[in-house]
Structures are given as C-alpha cells and as structure tokens.
C-alpha cells in the first residue's frame, strides 16, 4: 500500500518538476513548483518525517513560493522573448541530463552498490519526528543551530541593504505624532500692544489722476 502511494506521489512530483521547466507562463511554473513541494512533503510523510513535511509546506509553500510569485510579478520581462532560446539549448542540455541520469542509474543499480540503510526504517509506535529532531538540534547540534541564526541575520541585512530605499517625496501622516501634538505646537499666541487705528484720510482728488 505504502509503495503504491509512493509511486503515485513520485509520479506527480516528476510531472510537476517537468512542467516547472517547460511551462510557458512563469506564474504557472511557480504554481507547479508548489505542487512539487506538496508531493515532496507527502514523500517525507511516507518516511515518517512529519515535522520536515509540515515545515516544507509551511515554509516553502506558504512563504517562499509567495515570495517567488512576487518576484515573478515584479519583473518587467517579456518571458516569450526569454524562452526563445529554450529549444536551442534543448539538445545539449537534454544530452547532459540523459547522460547524468544513465550514469546515476548504472552506478546505483550496480551489484556492488549495496546501499545500507536505503530501505525505510520502521519506527516504533509513538515515534515523534519533531521530538527526535528537537532533542538533537538544541543540544548536540548547538553550533550549527546558532550559525543558522547568523545566516538568518545575514539574510535580513542583505534584504534590507539591497531593497530598502527611502522615498523622500512621499507625504504621509504619522498617527503617533498626531496624538502627541500639544496646543502650543499648533497655535502661537503673540502678545501685541493694541495699535491705534490709523485715521483714514480722504484721497486727494488730483492724485488719482496723476
């Protein structure tokens, strides 16, 4: 049963992967990538790596792919124009891909390649992937765990350094400043001595004519 499910998901995964490369519309390609991530998550689930499967969906499908679609839509590129080179490179790229695939198949199906541990491990009941990971990440893998934080920090710095720009000509209101405003900031009372009203003189008749 598990095998059947595996092959179904793997077939969809391959199909989706192929469509990512061949889809004409980049938005479609991105959506096929989402599909392939879903199937990847399902394969992980079959290996009882629940936590990884869920985080693949939460992080990749939920966040990274949204970002991907943003980027695709941010670009002002004629994709038809870009894809013109596609068929030109197909023969070379296809040959390389086929050679690599055949080599891999030959090596991995060779008699000497008795890959130990390649079969799925049957975990005992009550096995919790997230717990097992948790027990390792925060203790044994202390160093890579902290370095991962530094990597995220670099990501933040890089994203801000590369995309943040101050627009000087935008006009916007800051509610915090609006609330904090005092009467004195807006109204200035100046004490002025009362002035005598200048007596109005009757204009001379010949001035206007001069």
């Amino acid at each position, binding site marked *: 049963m598990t095998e059947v499910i595996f092959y179904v998901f793997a077939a969809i995964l391959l199909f989706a992967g192929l469509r990512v490369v061949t889809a004409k519309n980049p938005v479609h390609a991105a959506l096929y990538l989402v599909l392939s991530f879903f199937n990847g998550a399902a394969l992980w689930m079959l290996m009882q790596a629940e936590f990884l499967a869920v985080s693949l969906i939460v992080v990749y499908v939920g966040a990274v792919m949204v970002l991907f679609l943003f980027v695709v839509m941010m670009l002002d590129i004629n994709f038809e124009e870009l894809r013109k080179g596609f068929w030109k490179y197909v023969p070379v790229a296809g040959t390389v891909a086929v050679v690599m695939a055949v080599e891999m198949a030959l090596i991995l199906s060779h008699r000497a390649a008795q890959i130990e541990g390649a079969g799925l491990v049957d975990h005992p009941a009550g096995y919790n992937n997230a717990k097992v990971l948790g027990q390792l*990440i925060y203790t044994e893998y202390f160093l890579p765990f902290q370095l991962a934080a530094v990597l995220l920090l670099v990501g933040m710095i890089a994203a801000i350094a590369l995309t943040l720009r101050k627009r000087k000509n935008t006009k916007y209101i800051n509610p915090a400043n609006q609330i904090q405003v005092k009467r004195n900031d807006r109204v200035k009372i100046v004490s002025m001595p009362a002035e005598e009203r200048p007596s109005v003189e009757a204009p001379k008749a010949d001035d206007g004519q001069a």
Partner: protein
Amino acid sequence: MLENYFPILLFLIIGLLVGVAPMCLGWGVGKVLGTNKPDAEKLLPYECGFDAFEDARMQFDVRYYLVAILFILFDLEVAFLVPWALVLKDIGSFGFFSMMIFLAILVVGFIYEWMKGALEWE
C-alpha cells in the same frame, strides 16, 4: 504512525475526485455534444470593446518583497521553535538557553530592521 494519516489521504483522494471528475466530465461531454468554431475575434481578450491595454499580471512594488522576505526569516525562526517547545522538558536548561541565544541573535536583527525603518510602509 502512518495509519494516523489515512483520513488525510482519503480526504485528498475524495477531494481530487470531487474537484477533477466534474471538470473532466464537463470537458468530455462538451467535446461530444457542444459545437466549437473558434475564430480570431472570438478568441481575443475582451476589454470594453477595446484592444487589451496591458497584461493581466500586474507588477508589484519591490517593497512587498522586503516585507515578504522579512516574514520568511521569522517564519523559519518559528519553525525552529516548534520542536524546541515539544522537548523543552527533556533538554533542560542547556536547551532553553541554547534557544535564548538563537533568539538573541535574531532580536539583534529585529532591532536593526526596526531602526532602519524596514518595517514602515511610509
């Protein structure tokens, strides 16, 4: 363990059937019974009688990207918090403070982006 996910598999299968089967059915029945005589005018996108002005896809401002990427970074941080919360009792104070150091590094980044004004939409 996998048995626990059987309802979800069932849900997926039924969802696919309910979603895809009518689609295929409609397409097949339409193919057989309907008439289909397309010409250039019929296939044109229609926009109030004018030729289409622009692509249906709209360009986004690069600011969305910054917000999205900052979201992803903290999304990943939360992903790290989940297993930690599950095993907090087993890993003792070492595990607790290990996460605190991790969070401290990210808080530095958070202060940085806040002060830089990356979280403001102007």
